[in-house]
């Protein structure tokens, strides 16, 4: 069976229900990847956003809502719903949010991106199933649409499956 790999770039989002597909995103430094999967319909989405709040550049957010958490996450959820995904069933996982020196010389953006996702998801009535966030390493995230399984590679390390964990106290953050 041919597996089709859908690459999600920076400030990008892809949604599919093709069970033969794999959604993948690379170079998650301070950015956050939000992976959502409906285990019944297989409708799945992967969002890779750069910044927490669109208020800093509303024009950019209009051109590309996936650049920001507060426009990207709701937009992805709309697309998932239109594709047949049920918000109440969604399995949601977060990866990324590392403390890296970004182009603005800012260390804290990773944490801000992470907190933005947590705040928006809580407001949307969604609890996070698992996360691999923080630390200082860049990550790659890959999700199989058919099974909903998700793998993370941290730095140059081995890819490992991200399974259910508790919140920040049980966070897989490269330790």
């Amino acid at each position, binding site marked *: 069976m041919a597996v089709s790999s859908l690459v999600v770039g920076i400030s990008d989002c892809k949604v599919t229900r093709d069970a033969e597909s794999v959604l993948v995103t690379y170079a998650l430094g301070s950015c956050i990847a939000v992976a959502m999967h409906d285990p019944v319909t297989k409708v799945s989405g992967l969002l890779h956003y750069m910044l927490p709040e669109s208020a800093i550049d509303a024009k950019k957010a209009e051109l590309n809502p996936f650049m920001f958490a507060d426009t990207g996450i709701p937009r992805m959820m709309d697309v998932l719903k239109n594709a047949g995904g049920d918000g109440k069933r969604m399995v949601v996982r977060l990866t990324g949010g590392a403390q890296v020196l970004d182009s603005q010389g800012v260390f*804290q953006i990773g*944490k*801000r991106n992470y*907190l*933005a996702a*947590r*705040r928006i998801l*809580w*407001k949307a*009535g969604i609890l996070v199933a698992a996360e691999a966030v923080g630390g200082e390493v860049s990550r790659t995230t890959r999700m199989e649409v058919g099974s909903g399984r998700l793998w993370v590679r941290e730095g140059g390390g081995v890819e490992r499956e991200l399974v259910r964990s508790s*919140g*920040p106290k049980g966070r897989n953050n490269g330790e």
Partner: protein
Amino acid sequence: MPPELEHQSMMMDQEPTASDTIREVAAEVLETMFFTEAELATCEHSWLAAAACARIRFEGSHFGEMLLGVSLEAAGPIAASFLGLEPVELTDTQHGQVIQELSNILCGAMLSHLWPESKLALLSPELTPWQEWPPAGLLHRCFTIPEGMLAISIRLAPPAQPAGNQ
């Protein structure tokens, strides 16, 4: 050393550790349940006159109180974050209740970190205007949060003397 000065001295002896604790606990509480982050800020208190504030007393092996101030523009977003609502959906009563609960969580977490082997009880927090407590024996920090400002003061007090024991 008179007992009241002994308490102040004990607090000040721990000051570098206690200051770190305030910072770390404030960050942990705000990130974990309020999904926002706090950074230490230089103190400038003009905003406190209009801030939403709560005071909470504690007793047991240590007696004292904590005062929390949240700037007016931050109280709504903080409350909304906690409850998972939009700020416009909140009532003034809910604003106040969240500030009280925030003070409760901050105080309990700080005391548990500072004195993990102690026996403590927290009284119910009360909404109150901000008070500038005397600096002697006081632990105080201001923070910036994305929504506005936050201030925390903690002081110990000598335990109440039994009547007639002067």
